């Protein structure tokens, strides 16, 4: 029978010890904030050079000659502008939903019959999607307007008004700044590092010093012991989260959304890595090996799971590797909630994180032994 009194007591004694250890407190709370300040300051200039713009070409023909495919010529002209990087979207997709799902704010839709209208001199409009508050929105509109003008000049008819026009549609998704990625990334970093290193260390040390054996002589159970550690690291993670968000908003003017959706990630994350740390500390023979294995498990996640840089900026093969790392889904989930407002994506991440967490937690409890056979 799990006893809350025992969990609370173990939580108190562990938490007090943690707070008395200035080193742990520094790495748990202060270090991630320092990282935000350092990385935020380094990359506070602008977002990436080229802007990703999603394009849906609904004018797919058929055309009797390739020269009659004006839509493709229009897209090629946009591409050659150098300011935008076009990402094609299948014409069967609902474009607004597609943008939301991909957490994108900039897009262009070329309507059906675009080429025919152009060739016959009938008015036709290209729709530009954008978020007016984002700095990229103006750049995309300007680029599209430039290409439209170029096309209109080619079909110069002094009597006709411009053939190609532009309509704008506002989307809610915002173009993100580096610091917007950095905050969820470093919250993920904090979720990973503190519980993981601490539990690897504690569980291997307690095994070596036989403190676990000693605790096994009390009514405290393995489950209660781990539960109190998880609660402690959830508390620490929430504190660290609040600090980082405050610094992000007030120092770097980060655009992040705070909703109730963050809660499951802030609970499951520390639970996952406390359990994983304990698992590593338990299966290894001594603290030295535990430290090495702990590093081997932790370091790839620390750098590849989207902590310091958005995953999308990495080469594809690294992105594939990243998807094997549990932290990836936590950081992606946090990004989906805090930055993109993409809750469908967040649910998928949450499901993955829940499954991994439950599995690792149960494995840690099962493998972890108070006593020896």
């Amino acid at each position, binding site marked *: 029978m799990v*006893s809350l*009194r*025992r969990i*609370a*007591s*173990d939580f*108190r*004694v*562990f938490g*007090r*010890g*943690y707070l*008395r*250890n200035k080193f742990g407190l520094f790495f748990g709370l202060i270090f991630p904030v320092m990282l935000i300040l350092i990385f935020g300051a380094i990359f506070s200039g602008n977002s990436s050079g080229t802007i990703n713009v999603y394009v849906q070409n609904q004018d797919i023909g058929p055309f009797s000659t390739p020269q009659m495919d004006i839509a493709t010529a229009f897209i090629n002209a946009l591409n050659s502008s150098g300011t935008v990087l076009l990402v094609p979207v299948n014409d069967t997709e609902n474009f607004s939903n597609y943008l939301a799902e991909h957490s994108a704010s900039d897009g262009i839709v070329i309507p059906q019959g675009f080429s025919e209208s152009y060739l016959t001199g009938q008015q036709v409009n290209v729709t530009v999607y954008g978020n007016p508050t984002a700095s990229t929105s103006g750049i995309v509109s300007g680029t599209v307007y430039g290409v439209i003008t170029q096309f209109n000049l080619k079909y110069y008819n002094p009597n006709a008004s411009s053939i190609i026009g532009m309509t704008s549609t506002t989307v809610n998704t915002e173009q993100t700044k580096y610091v917007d990625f950095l905050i969820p990334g470093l919250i993920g970093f904090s979720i990973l590092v503190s519980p993981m290193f601490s539990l690897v260390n504690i569980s291997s040390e307690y095994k070596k*010093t*036989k*403190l676990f*054996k*000693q605790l*096994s*002589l*009390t*009514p*405290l159970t393995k489950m209660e012991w781990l539960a109190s550690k998880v609660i402690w690291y959830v508390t620490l993670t929430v504190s660290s989260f609040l600090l980082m968000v405050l610094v992000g908003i007030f120092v770097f003017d980060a655009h992040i959304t705070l909703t109730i959706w963050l809660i499951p990630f802030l609970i499951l994350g520390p639970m996952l890595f406390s359990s994983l740390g304990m698992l590593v500390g338990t299966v290894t023979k001594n603290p030295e090996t535990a430290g090495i294995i702990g590093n081997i498990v932790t370091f790839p996640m620390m750098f590849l799971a989207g902590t310091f840089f958005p995953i999308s900026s990495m080469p594809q093969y690294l992105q594939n590797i990243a998807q094997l790392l549990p932290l990836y889904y936590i950081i992606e989930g946090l990004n989906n909630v805090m930055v993109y407002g993409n809750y469908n994506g967040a649910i998928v991440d949450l499901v993955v994180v829940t499954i991994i967490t439950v599995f690792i937690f149960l494995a840690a409890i099962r493998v972890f032994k108070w*006593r*020896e*056979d």
Partner: protein
Amino acid sequence: MTLRVVLTVDPIEVTSLKKIYGDIKAVDGITFSVSKGEVFALLGPNGAGKTTAIEIMEGLRKRDQGNVKVLGFDPWKEGHKLHKKIGVIPQDFTFFEKATPREAILYYSDLFGVKTNPDQLIKEVLLEDSDKVLFENLSGGQKQKTGLALALVNSPELLFLDEPTTGLDPNARRAIWEVIRGFKAQGKTIVLTTHYLDEAQQLSDRVAIMNHGQIVAIGTADEIIEQHGSGERLEIQGTEELANYIGENTELVINYNEGIISIPLKQKIDALAALAAAEQSKLDWGEIRTRRDSLDDVFVKLVSGMVDEHGEIIFENSNGSNI
């Protein structure tokens, strides 16, 4: 009229206990029991199997063969019930570094779900001067006292103390003995392991000497000396030549080792015969005395060597040359 039959069961009953690790028989078929209120010491060098045996009794290790009942429980299968009734200081007791003894006591009280008066426990283990010092800053003796206090939190009827004074300085050892004597005075049953002979003699009612996983002697110190000691003997300081002379001119058994001629005495008059031969030899001889084996002598004989303060055998026993 009703007839009440009271069955007294010993708190600890161990029968043919075995624990084997690969080729090593850590505990090799030991049998003993400990009575209520008794202080029982398992004495032996490192590797004798003391800790394995005590940990099996505490429910920390699983036995391979034999029977163990502690307070009527199977320690391995019913550990959770047993642990509420026993107090334990494991070997090399340690605690959370950043907690004080007082916090440790309150923590254990919460875990056991009992109300404790920390002041009283701290006083009982003589820790008043350092109850608010972090565990990492306590001396070895103070750490052990913290362990003793924790072992008492649940008011146990049975205490297991695994090498409670190993590595402590003489003053700290005596202080711990004082605390253990206090427990004994309260009528608690105590099982302790030690490799210090004086500790076993000072504290325990009965001793079991362990070597290579087996109990080689068991009983009170006097009983062990009686059973395994060599009885009274005459010792004469002299040369090997003198030893040979006495051997040739009497019917006595003579042992010679490093300037001491040792002669077991079957009867008192044997001493007279030996001394007469010594006088007759015209050789020089020094101090004479008669003595019996002490527990030290028996221990050295039984474990084939002396142990140092860490429990390691420092030299193999040699019984001298038999003439």
